[in-house]
């Protein structure tokens, strides 16, 4: 996996500066010190402030850098994001159809769509994988798997 360079530093720096500012803002609402010693706002105030300072340093350094930004390979990023979307979607779906069906659908997507394998292979892998997980974890190890309101 090729890392993104300068452009990524700039935007991630901004995002982390915003997170740091949020931490500081929240920490200001809690006691910095109490009669017994440091309060709940003490530690977050320090690391939040440090986060803002470091993130802004990253933003400034990235903005001032003269080197060209590495070209983003959107196709690569798109594949990873599609996989993540399928995973997040499968988890949402597990609320409805339970683990076994949700996992089978996710596996089918990864094999048929992402890996571009033949449909027959994708279906076999999906069904076998779901059955394997049910057999090993639910039946053999007696672990509870996510349940949906349908299954």
């Amino acid at each position, binding site marked *: 996996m090729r890392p993104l360079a300068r452009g990524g530093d700039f935007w991630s720096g901004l995002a982390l500066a915003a997170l740091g500012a949020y931490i500081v803002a929240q920490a200001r609402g809690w006691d910095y010190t109490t009669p017994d010693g440091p309060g709940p706002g003490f530690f977050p105030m320090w690391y939040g402030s440090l*986060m803002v300072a470091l993130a802004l340093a990253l933003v400034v350094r990235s903005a001032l850098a003269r080197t060209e930004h590495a070209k983003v390979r959107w196709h690569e990023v798109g594949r990873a994001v599609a996989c993540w979307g399928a995973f997040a979607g499968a988890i949402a779906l597990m609320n409805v159809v339970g683990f076994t069906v949700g996992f089978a659908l996710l596996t089918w997507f990864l094999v048929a769509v992402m890996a571009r*394998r033949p449909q027959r292979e994708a279906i076999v892998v999906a069904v076998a994988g779901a059955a394997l997980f049910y057999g090993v974890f639910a039946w053999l190890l007696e672990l509870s798997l996510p349940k949906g309101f349908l299954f």
Partner: protein
Amino acid sequence: MDILAGLMQGFQVATTPTALGMCMLGVVLGTVIGVLPGLGPPATIAMLLPLTMKLEPTGAMIMLAGIYYGAKYGGSTTSILLNVPGESSSVVTCIDGYQMARKGRAGPALGMAAIASFIAGTFGVVALMLIAPMLARVSLAFSSPEYFALMVMGLAMVVLLAGNSLVKALLAMLVGLWVSGIGTDLFTATSRFTFGTVQLLGGVDFVVVAIGLFALGEVLGNMEPADPPKMLPVPKGLRNLLPTWQDMKRCRFAFVNGSVIGFLIGVLPGAGATIASFISYGIEKAVSRHPEEFGHGAIEGVAAPEGSNNAETGGALVPLLTLGIPGSSTTAILLAALILWGFKPGPLFIQDSPQLFWGLVASMYIGNVVLLILNLPLVAVFAQLLRVPAHILNPLILGVSVVGVYASGSSMFQLGLLALFGLVGYLMRKLDYPCAPMVLGLVLGDPMERALRQSLMMSQGSLAILLRPIPLTLLVVAAALLAVPLFRKSNALRVQMLDREEA
């Protein structure tokens, strides 16, 4: 005498059928994930951790530790046959191991990797057994200020050696501290960063973050297309795997170098097996009578790094078990496992849980022997794992991740967090932010805040309590470590080492 008695007790624990079975399972799993590029010990241990909650803790710890050191044995197979490291600690083995394989000496390279791993791995366990009880006795004198300073130094070391950019490593560590702060403050019962949700009042489960960052992040990274490398053939028959007497003679110093350097680097937080293997390789080349052969298939170039990355395991367990301070992502997950099972790693750990400590030590002796057997005659079998296609492996990793997280809390909210941290893990890889400082920040955040607040309560708010000799020394060392990048020459050395690690 105490040590001998402890070791005897340990062997009684480790030779029970259950413990032996767990040890075998751990080292086999470790070898498998070591052979497979793209799936490392932190991801595997994090995924399996929730599933071990039903198991007896000693057996479970023996298994998880088996995965940890077993992966280092397996990692060399991929380095030698594919020129792709199965583990980051096997990167340097590619240099001479692959060259040996190209010259038709894959067998002796694989054999030497297994033998050096066995010798140094066993040395690491002996040193762990001798040094851990001594360090535990010394650290009994530690109180909150010393612990706070020790954790700061550990984090500084991890940050220094975690990535090319110190700023990014520090930011990753701060995000880890923030995530550890989510939930209810134990001192004042104040809710912090819970976004008004009840589910976050108890904090963010470490397992969810670790599985998201490592397992899910790894799968998402694997989605990017890459040309599959071609594997060189594995020689058949044990005779073809054994190095010659001449090879063994050439590697005498490499065994000592790898063992000692690996263990010492392991004790230091943050440095880890990869750094240990580079340093021992560098030393080996520097003292060799044939430095020109390095990079072209010198067998010492396989023995030294493979030895050191295995001796590092014993070293890394010393601060973990005696101080409760992990030095890497994997040991951070092992620390979380011990805490989840109700143990308190620290100065009293050996005294309070002798069965677990000595059982683990004894199991590591057994595990190293099993790994030698697995990685000599059976190396061809494990090499076949490299033929498992990614489109079969990736769904399995995702499935085990979901089951693992759900088993730890039976909550769909946790699965949502898993998806979120998976995306964070992918973005961190993509944006070149190291994951190790974040995981260590997450594990150490809570105890570090507690230690700092307790220290300041003891001193009624005066920071002078941190100026006691031990905390002051540790804090000065931490500051010096973080100042390294300010000095052009030392930073160039640091970046050069990390660049080679990434290459």
